[in-house]
């Protein structure tokens, strides 16, 4: 085994991630997009009170998600919270402009006294490409060049850059500057080895998006990240995991509440990608062996602790609220996560570390 870092449990960060799915209100009606955004604000405020470390908001441009502009929502959260870090998850860099990304996040950083974070990535959907006039087939060059520029802009010094995907910059300074001189920026990666290598090349922290199948297959990816950093002479930073989940008082309540929402969510996306409809059996299997963290606080905590120790990561973000879940269950879930799951995960991780040392 290659893992020797053994991160102490108190250093592990726990986050919640939302794409701004549309919840149901108390009368079982789907909320409006605007109400769904306000729901996320309430959830962030609750998470902050509970001491949850991060909230990350994804960027989507489709009717089933309310958040297309995560920074604006984060700005709203910024002035109502004290400690929680405010991240995107992910910012679709290929169809954005690195200069503007920096400007928006450094503004959130100002509003939040230094709590802004960026997670850059490809995202799991592609609707931003046609929307903003990019060709899907240009994905590689768009991401590669924009990442290179982003890395420069993040240094917060005058930037000189030229490439093919945006006008060049000659010794241009970008504002506002942050007080700390740096916005914490990671890259979100699915299963592509080349993306892991690229993250190491720029020395960014790595967020592994594990949205299906067992997390075990990512063990060598963490090793790849560290080895690649060595070869490039950069330094490997933190590694985190982002996976979907839902928590209720009992396993049965959790899976029975999550299933209909999950099915709607999955089948709707499946229609555009040519997947068949998802069955309850597959859902249950994914809970048992895969990457759905659904169940009672104890069940979910055990599963998270297993992943954290297995991959030796220092951050776990739970994507919550997929599909039309009742808004009340979402708030309850965050409460259980903050009050019960996180403390139990820390305890379990400590026990596992003791056993191996």
């Amino acid at each position, binding site marked *: 085994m290659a893992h020797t870092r053994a991160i102490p449990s108190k250093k592990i960060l726990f986050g919640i991630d939302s794409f701004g799915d549309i919840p149901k209100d108390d009368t079982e009606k789907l909320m409006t997009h605007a109400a769904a955004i306000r729901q996320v604000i309430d959830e962030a405020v609750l998470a902050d009170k509970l001491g949850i470390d991060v909230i990350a908001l994804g960027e989507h441009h489709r009717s089933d998600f309310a958040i297309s502009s995560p920074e604006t929502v984060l700005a709203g959260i910024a002035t109502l919270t004290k400690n929680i870090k405010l991240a995107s998850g992910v910012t679709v860099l290929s169809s954005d402009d690195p200069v503007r990304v920096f400007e928006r996040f450094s503004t959130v950083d100002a509003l939040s006294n230094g709590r802004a974070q960026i997670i850059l990535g490809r995202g799991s959907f592609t609707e931003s490409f046609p929307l903003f006039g990019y060709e899907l087939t240009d994905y590689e060059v768009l991401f590669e060049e924009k990442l290179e520029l982003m890395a420069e802009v993040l240094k917060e010094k005058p930037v000189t850059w030229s490439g093919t995907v945006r006008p060049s910059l000659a010794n241009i300074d970008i504002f506002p500057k942050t007080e700390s001189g740096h916005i914490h920026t990671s890259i979100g990666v699915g299963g592509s080895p080349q993306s892991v290598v690229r993250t190491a090349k720029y020395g960014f922290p790595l967020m592994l998006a594990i949205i299906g199948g067992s997390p075990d297959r990512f063990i060598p990816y963490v090793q790849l990240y560290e080895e690649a950093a060595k*070869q490039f002479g950069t330094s490997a930073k933190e590694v985190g995991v982002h996976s979907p989940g839902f928590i209720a008082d009992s396993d049965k309540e959790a899976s029975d509440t999550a299933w209909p929402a999950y099915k709607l969510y999955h089948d709707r996306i499946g229609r555009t990608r040519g997947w068949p409809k998802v069955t309850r059996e597959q859902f249950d299997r994914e809970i048992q062996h895969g990457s759905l963290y659904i169940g009672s606080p104890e069940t979910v905590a055990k599963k998270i602790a297993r992943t954290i120790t297995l991959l030796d990561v220092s951050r776990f973000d739970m994507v919550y609220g997929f599909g039309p879940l009742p808004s009340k269950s979402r708030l309850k879930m965050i409460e259980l996560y903050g009050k019960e799951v996180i403390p139990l995960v820390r305890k379990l991780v400590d026990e596992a570390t003791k056993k191996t040392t």
Partner: protein
Amino acid sequence: MPKQIHTISILGAGKLGITIAQLALKAGYRVYIAGSGSEDKIRLSVSILAPGAVPTTTEHAAQMGDIVILALPLGKYRTIPSRKLKEKLVIDAMNYWWEVDGNADALKNPQTSTSEIVQQYLPDARVVKAISHMGYHHLRDEAQAAGAQNRKALAIAGNHRSDVEQVSEFIDRLGFDPLPIGELHNGRQLEPGHAAFGANLSKDSLASLLL
């Protein structure tokens, strides 16, 4: 006598290519693997994710394999070194994925399977469609020795019986029950939007969807 299969070459070193390399190494095959560029670009990831596989160029890989597996984006099929694939047994594991391949009308034609388009481009190769319908994470998690309970199946479509037999044996050694479904044209049934796409099922259940 058909040629004995000892060496597998994989064109594409991404999610699927690396997973197939891992399974093939475990089954005892010699494995060559190539990405879009030079072998240096993939050397590190191959050495860590599929240690034992030999990183190389597509040209060299195509030449070396007893079976050559296509695991690159379908939209790039015209970059496949066709002259090196004369008379070779080729497994087409590619799917038309509009989010990667863009909106390519030719690949969406409901009359032909995408594997037939690939076969037209590689007229001298023996193309068999396989290892295309199951997600790469399932391939990795579900591979099991022959006879295991709950073993999963992979469908195979090809025009020549002996090719399908050879691919069947290969798939069996990778850890899945082979399920021949007839001619290459039938590969259509495994494509996105069709019944078996995404299927992670036992042989019987898969057969009931397809046969």
